[in-house]
């Protein structure tokens, strides 16, 4: 379709495409279509809470489908969750929320900074891809502003054909700002059962690199790195952030205002895309 906004270059490119009758087409799907779990973390203490919201309509339009979801919270054992919530039958546009206060009470822990997983599935609605995920969103908030975020669950599997992975797995985040007033925070989740090492690389606007690590995160665990020392390195902003890990992990990059202690950013990273 001709778009009114195309630049002359794009018009030329699209014209050439029409001329040689080429259309973008992805490779056929290989593998089993099935619902897969997704990963996230939970934070709770006297100051901070997490509200987890899930509705099946997130990534399906099967309005007559029946759905179930299961929430699992992991502590020391990567194979045995310490808390599991299993929903009753949900209809397509139903929603359920879980509150971290209730979860903390049930597991009898005053503080939570734990990895958790969501497995949502339908016995009668077909997934659309090899590892389709029905996603939940976590809304974090705190009385003093020290932990604020709204994060979608992270895909653990899938999309391998678009991700450039060699010996290590990499995720990147563009143009963070690191200064005396804003220190970086990185939260990394390990969705697998084995422990994992990860490294952090900061690449400043001039290409100067700074490495941190390795750091270890246990199986089905979550780790937080606070860059107290890197604020004094004199990196030229903006700074690209790379997390290198031994296997696929999911990371979030944020910032804390050092004057107020407020969290003023927390967003997920992306892998290097191979196409």
């Amino acid at each position: 379709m001709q778009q009114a906004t195309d630049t002359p270059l794009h018009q030329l490119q699209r014209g050439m495409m029409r001329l040689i009758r080429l259309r973008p087409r992805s490779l056929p799907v290989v593998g089993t279509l099935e619902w897969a779990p997704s990963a996230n973390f939970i934070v709770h203490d006297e100051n901070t809470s997490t509200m987890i919201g899930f509705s099946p309509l997130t990534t399906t339009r099967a309005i007559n489908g029946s759905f179930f979801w299961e929430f699992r919270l992991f502590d020391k054992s990567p194979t045995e969750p310490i808390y599991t919530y299993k929903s009753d039958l949900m209809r397509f546009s139903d929603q359920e929320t879980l509150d971290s206060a209730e979860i903390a009470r049930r597991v009898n822990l005053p503080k939570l900074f734990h990895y958790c997983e969501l497995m949502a599935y339908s016995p009668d609605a077909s997934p659309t891809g090899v590892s389709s995920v029905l996603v939940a969103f976590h809304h974090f908030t705190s009385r003093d502003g020290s932990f604020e975020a709204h994060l979608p669950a992270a895909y653990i599997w899938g999309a391998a054909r678009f991700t450039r992975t060699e010996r290590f797995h990499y995720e990147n985040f563009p143009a963070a700002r690191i200064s005396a007033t804003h220190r970086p925070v990185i939260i990394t989740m390990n969705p697998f059962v084995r422990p994992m090492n990860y490294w952090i690389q900061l690449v400043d606007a001039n290409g100067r690199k700074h490495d941190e690590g390795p750091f270890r995160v246990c199986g089905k665990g979550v780790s937080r790195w606070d860059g107290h020392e890197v604020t004094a390195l004199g990196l030229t902003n903006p700074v690209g952030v790379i997390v290198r890990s031994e296997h696929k992990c999911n990371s979030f990059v944020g910032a804390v205002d050092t004057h107020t202690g407020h969290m003023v950013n927390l967003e997920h990273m992306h892998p290097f895309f191979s196409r």
Partner: protein
Amino acid sequence: MTPDSSPADLPDAGPPGRRNVCNCFQVTYDDVQKMLHETNGANMETLKKYYQIGTRCSSCEYEIKDLITVYHEEQRQGELVLGGVGVPLGRRIGTAYRRIKLDVLRRLIARRYGIFVLRREDMESSLVLSNMQFPEDCTNANGPGISFRVLLFDRAGQNVARSRTLKLGNNESREFWLVDLFPGLKGNLTGMLFIDYGVLTQVGSLRPYCCLNFRRMNGEFQGRWHYHDKFRTEPYNGYYHCNHPLVIGQVCYLAASNPIDQPYRSRVFLRTTDGRERETTIEIPPHGSLWCSVPELFPEIPDDHGESNALLWFENNQALMVWFFWHKQNDDIWLVQHH
């Protein structure tokens, strides 16, 4: 630095290929690759039956399925480079044609990305890009630098500005304010950016993000919140929705930009915890944008109303880019996330 969870007594994970996939039976990544070669890419059930892998705690099952999928994709890619021994000539020619076609396409298609932008007295979006090398081989598949242009559309979908061709060097990160991109642009703005890269071999780290930069009451820079592009031209396979439209102490805002040439019209529903469903409609012109709070969409909802189990969703799944912003009034912090 304070890595929070690093139990010191954990064993070293070792080289990547020697790491266990199945802890119960001590099966490594390399072992799984061997099994797949031996069985010509058997499915999970076959691997379970003949190798016991994943039959005890089953926590590795999805990962093994993912390895099987990747194996098959690699096999298919292998065929595409004419390397398959015993592959019929016709198929080899066909796959070679597809391979060349994909390669040609990659070099012909300009990569377009799209993202919502906002500029007003207390906050402003900036575009942030990083063109980082792939860290493992310290090379950049796109060469010494890339070029791109940025188009700006206003709320009504008018193309109000177009940047000159910009460049980003290898390993360079840059932040572009609207005034840098469009020097003549003045005043408040709600709209959308299209970021058009020229020829890219790989996207790498170039997926665009914006930052919402917000200021204190005295005008001093307070913080910023990253959010990333959501450009799409195909319908979404679910419903654009928000699980937390009514959070105590926070006002939720909807930001939506229409990336295609068709107008977007939809009914929007808000269901509150008591099960009551409210309905309104939105319309966004082609390339237009919308910015409004949930109380503005549903005026009977008070600004300070919060509840845990509300759900907001759009009926129409036509291509649209959607983000939600929350303003936490006590601390004057803004959060942003795509739907």
